[in-house]
């Protein structure tokens, strides 16, 4: 069996950098911060590579994003993925999750897949809805929030980190899975991997290539809008005390004053 594995990768602003919104649009100012691979997607890439190594198959990186997302695609390839598809179209900028899911689903339809692997969420928007939206759009099994993935023939079984504990969930290929942080230890690109990545094929697709209506995506085509935003007001300066032996009692007094004890 040779599995066609597609791993979804999103370039996000580094969580260590200052993230801000664009006045008027209320969208993330992606130019203002360093772009990195969403760290939760690194677990998805690693899982895809491990599945391909264990069962045979090919790993394709799929990313929707502006031109600079090419850096993150290249990094994913240097970890060992075979090829990549970059959906690049200015009309996509400002798309909300629902509009973005339409673009990704169209790209997956075109690329073809047995298994789609996503991270559990992105560290910028943090909606945690994408894998479920894609499973719905593609009408395939949703095997999400996995802390372990097993494939036996055409059956995929995951240990799902659900709200009330662990659920063991099974479904047939093709399927969409999402993986949790810590499911594996993502590998670092080797020097050889970095060199090899430079020659790996990256296909660029536009909305027209995917037959997606540009009016249905982007800021204007999205079903949601940010109506306003402001920097969060700084929290009032707190009382900071150095412990001189009575620190615990001082905290107790504070908690009692606030009626916590």
């Amino acid at each position: 069996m040779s599995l066609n594995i597609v791993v979804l990768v999103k370039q996000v602003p580094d969580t260590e950098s200052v993230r801000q919104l664009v006045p008027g649009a209320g969208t993330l100012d992606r130019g203002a911060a360093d772009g990195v691979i969403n760290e939760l997607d690194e677990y998805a890439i690693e899982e895809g590579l491990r599945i391909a190594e264990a069962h045979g198959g090919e790993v394709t990186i799929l990313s929707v994003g502006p031109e600079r997302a090419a850096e993150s695609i290249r990094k994913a390839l240097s970890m060992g993925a075979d090829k990549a598809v970059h959906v690049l179209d200015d009309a996509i900028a400002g798309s909300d999750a629902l509009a973005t899911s339409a673009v990704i689903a169209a790209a997956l339809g075109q690329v073809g897949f047995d298994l789609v692997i996503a991270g559990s969420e992105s560290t910028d928007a943090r909606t945690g809805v994408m894998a479920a939206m894609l499973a719905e759009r593609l009408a395939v099994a949703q095997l999400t929030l996995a802390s372990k993935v097993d494939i036996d023939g055409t059956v995929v079984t995951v240990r799902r980190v659900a709200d009330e504990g662990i659920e063991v969930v099974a479904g047939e290929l093709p399927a969409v899975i999402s993986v949790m942080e810590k499911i594996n230890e993502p590998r670092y690109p080797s020097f050889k991997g970095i060199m090899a990545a430079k020659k790996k094929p990256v296909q660029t697709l536009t909305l027209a290539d995917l037959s997606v209506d540009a009016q249905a995506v982007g800021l204007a085509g999205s079903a949601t809008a940010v109506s306003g935003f402001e920097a969060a007001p700084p929290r009032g300066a707190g009382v900071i005390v150095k412990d001189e032996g009575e620190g615990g009692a001082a905290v107790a007094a504070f908690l009692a004053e606030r009626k916590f004890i």
Partner: protein
Amino acid sequence: MAEVLVLVEHTGGDVKKVTAELLTAAARLGTPSAVWAGPGAEAGQARLAEFGAATVYVADSPDLADYVAAPKAELLARLVASASPAAVLIAGTAEGKEIAGRLAVKTGAGILTDATGIHAAPDGTPVTAHANFGGAVNAQATTRTGLAIITVRPNAITPAPAAGQATLVPVDFTASDAARAARVTAREPSQKSARPDLTEAQVVVSGGRGTGSADGFKVIEDLADALGAAVGASRAVVDAGWYPHQFQVGQTGKTVSPQLYAAIGISGAIQHRAGMQTSKTILAINKDPEAPIFEIADYGIIGDLFTVIPQLITEISKRKAD
């Protein structure tokens, strides 16, 4: 007034606190209708009435528990078609977000996730508040569609009792084949701890690198128990294997919004603040006077947690005894 659907979170017949929060928010947008998926609605009815549910749609089909997310989204989509609600409110749990995402695809309606506040604009349109980028930015959002699908951060909205009829309306539901693609074959419920649920707790005590070891982390549990609090952990603690991942608070862990958040031995990197910055009161104890956690703390002690915490616990039990 248009209906506003609230998907009830329940275990057995026990209605979770977040559902009361959602019903309170729903009343600001229209007439709250609860949607009960699974058995036990009779047991939960009184609680739903207490927080203003006019109607409780009850679909008691095993499909709703036997398959992941999709059947609940399908049930909600059917109720959207028959009741034409102004909004659907869903708890911002892991599965809640997935159900909301699928419902958005089914209905084409705008989806707003992780709302920390909800109100109606003068024209009645739902407006949601959001704390973005670890609480650095406050944003407001709306949908352009007649229906808004909103997931709400637990503990962010104060529930207000309001009388409702909570009339049970049975709904005949069987999931389609498409919604049965991911079957739950086994369940291993989390060990029921005596402590409150992390995302619903009024008080959360979290420990960080400063606890030094798995053994050292026990002092965090002791303080949590003295305060009747949930235990949280920083990523450093989880990475080191001192405490399980399900308790991680932060950017890639849980987001909490308790009345009191105690950050013990946690430096307060942006990664951590993303998960707790909307807490009402923040207490910090840290050896390092430069720790960024002190910038957002309402009260802070610069000192050794291993001397401060035991003294605090003694003081708490003394006050309890008085």
